[in-house]
């Protein structure tokens, strides 16, 4: 009876929401093809891969593919670096993006607003390869622009490629510079969604600009912030490979402060062609990301169920 009832309900839902379901169909297909079907390939993490037998035909090798990661004693350090960098990026970028979005929403002149927005958005389109090349030409000890200026002013050179201490700051700055334009648009859209009537009545009640931001805008964009936060935390174990690799490259002196899981694995496996081993670490990251996502969502649901993802 239960099954029959279920089918009846389903077919009723389908008939009633046909248009909506059709609209979501492309996304469902996209996720199936690019996210769910490839998941079967995760078995390669437990296989000793060869080209002839392919992913499913190659022999099993248990957890052997994970060994190298924990053997060199770097697993903890690169995992820690990955999480700390991502945490720093999440905090700084969200603060800057929200601030930028509020400023943008307050700008009255449309032309100035568009130019500002465009200028902020531009870095998003510059690839990390180009940023890496520009950074090298700026920061190079013997030939860099910055050191040339410093020397001509009689100051000491900035030895950034042999001293790791300044790199966390450089990464946080560059990551914010590149992403702030894109992120602020999302928040700007959320701000635009807040009804103007609320602001008008607040003005009538004598609220100043700061009070409007504090009591209307910020609470209004809270749901957006929480969703973005959960999604970002869901990726906290994945390092931005392009950024770290293009800026640091193969400079061993900087690894302690700059090596993330992705760059470490790339370097270790570059010459061994072990797809199984690189997939093993990919799986390690995915499992950790999945756990953090679930836990974060759980915590948010405890605090305020309305803001949770599910």
């Amino acid at each position, binding site marked *: 009876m239960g099954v029959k009832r279920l089918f009846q309900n389903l077919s009723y839902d389908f008939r009633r929401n046909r248009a909506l379901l059709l609209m979501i169909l492309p996304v469902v297909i996209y996720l199936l093809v690019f996210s769910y079907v490839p998941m079967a390939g995760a078995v390669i993490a437990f296989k000793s*891969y*060869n*080209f*002839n*037998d392919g992913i499913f035909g190659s022999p099993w090798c248990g957890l*052997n593919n994970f*060994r*190298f990661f924990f*053997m*060199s*004693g*770097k697993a903890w350090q690169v995992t820690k670096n990955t999480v700390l960098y991502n945490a720093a990026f999440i905090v700084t970028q969200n603060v800057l993006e929200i601030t930028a979005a509020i400023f943008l929403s307050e700008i009255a002149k449309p032309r100035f607003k568009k130019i500002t927005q465009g200028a902020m958005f531009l870095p998003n389109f510059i690839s990390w390869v180009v940023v890496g090349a520009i950074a*090298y030409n700026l920061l*190079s*000890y*013997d*030939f860099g622009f910055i050191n040339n200026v410093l020397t001509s002013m009689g100051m000491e050179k900035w*030895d950034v*490629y*042999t001293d790791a201490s300044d790199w966390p700051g450089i990464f946080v700055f560059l990551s914010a510079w590149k992403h702030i334009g894109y992120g602020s648009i999302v928040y700007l859209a959320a701000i635009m969604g807040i009804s103007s009537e609320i602001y008008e009545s607040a003005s009538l009640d004598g609220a100043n600009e700061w009070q409007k931001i504090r009591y209307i805008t910020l609470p209004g964009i809270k749901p957006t912030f929480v969703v973005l936060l959960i999604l970002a935390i869901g990726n906290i174990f994945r390092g931005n490979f392009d950024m770290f690799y293009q800026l*640091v*490259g*193969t*400079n*061993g*002196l*900087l*690894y302690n402060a700059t*090596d993330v899981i992705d760059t*470490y694995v790339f*370097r*270790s*496996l*570059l*010459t*061994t*062609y*072990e*797809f199984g*081993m690189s997939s093993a670490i990919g799986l390690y990251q995915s499992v950790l990301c999945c756990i953090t996502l679930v836990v974060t969502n759980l915590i948010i649901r405890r605090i305020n169920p309305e803001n949770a993802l599910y």
Partner: protein
Amino acid sequence: MKKFTRFLSALLIAVLLIPTASVALADSAEPTELIFYFLGEEMEDDKVVIGAINEKLIEKLNCYMTIEYVPFGEVNTTYPLLFASQTRMDAVFAAYFTGYATLANKDAYMELTEEMLKEYAPLTWEDTPAEVWDQARINGKIYAVPQLYIENIQGVLGIRGDLREKYGLPEVTDIPSLENYMAAVAENEDELVPLLFGTMYNYLYDILMFEPNEWASDGNVSQICMAYELTEDAPTPFCYLYTDEYREAVETVYRWNQNGWISRDSLSNTHTNRENMTNGRIAVMMDNSGTVNTTGQDILKQNTGAYLEMVDLSGDAKILRYAATGGMLAIPTQSQHPELVLQVVDYLRNDKEMNYLVQRGIEGEDAQWYLAGELNEDGTVNENIVAFGERNSLYGGNWICWSAFRNWDYQTLPAAENCISGYRDIWNDMNERSINNIMQAFTFDTTNYQNELAAIQSVYDEYGKPLNLGFVDPSTGIDEYIAMMEAAGLTTVIDAYLQQAADYLAAQGAAAQAE
């Protein structure tokens, strides 16, 4: 509606018929397309040269080559994916530095049996010495056709002769005179540094350690730092990290670095020696003789008064001739036409006209090359010595010609006018001193040590490179480096390596006795 249904049916039938029609068209009269993958990028005159080669191929073998490229910078990333993704290709460049042994063990390449080679590449099989075939063997099986070429890629120096004269210094002939030159440059020049290394700094240790000691290293697994005495007939390999010679070399480099002779950008620089020298950033380049010569030509073309002198510090020490596995052609397992590929190799490698086409390009002063007219001792023209035509630089920059097509009967050496000071003498001298060694054909089977090798690789990058370029004090740095290598499993891998090498040498000795 009926009309529409008919139209749909007709369309369906037409679509179904297309493959049949194309099968019918692809009969034996149509030349077969062979897809070759090489390293590098397409050059301006490739189409003309390959077009000329294809004309002959169609005539003789009814096939033609389509060339695809893997850029040099993507050798470690894109190259293995060609096999994993089962990309359509019939032949592919292979070398020890593209992971030939590892990929052969993973079934990426087709085994080339003796029968296949005898039947489809008989001239190649016949003319290639057994010890060269042995270099291409992995666990006794051949997976690629090795190159036949006399080439020495040891490190030599490129010195800015104009600067040396400016400071009134004598020619560089040894390490102390090199140091005097570097000191003068560091003291007097603001715009350039004596040395700036990049991702490749192996020539530095060639000059300081391998050449003077007559050592050779194993490039297949460079991260475990194994070397051997190249003058011995059956040498026992050793890990050079534990030797006094390594310590001395590292101490020298550390001193250079502390003196400011090595740029502090060396760990992050990604430009090649050639780029840094032609851009006027360095006063000394350490590279192989061919590259130093080409760079010297580049500098002369700039007409700034700067010029390069080539210096070889290896004296009369024996050096190792470049491995035949440094440029090969393999047939991937997914190839559709392995027999035809072998026939093409046999033709291009052994036919003089075809070999000149593929290696040198089109003949003519307005094309790539022409005979320089230098004479042999018997008065005949030396066909190996070639002058550069107007379009010389528009062909040969990628590695179409650096593979199994190479044949030492048709060696190419630039004419005197295309050589910088010192090149010809060094080239001739090195050829006389260079030898092969039985260990060149030894391949360490890494199958059971992939985890250790990956962990060691990361230590090698993190601790080895800064130490080797003088950024870390060797008095503590060497011990720390070795300790990290051992923690990553170096001892286990070395033991296995020595065991496999001993087994290999014993087998070779037994085979030689049996003969």
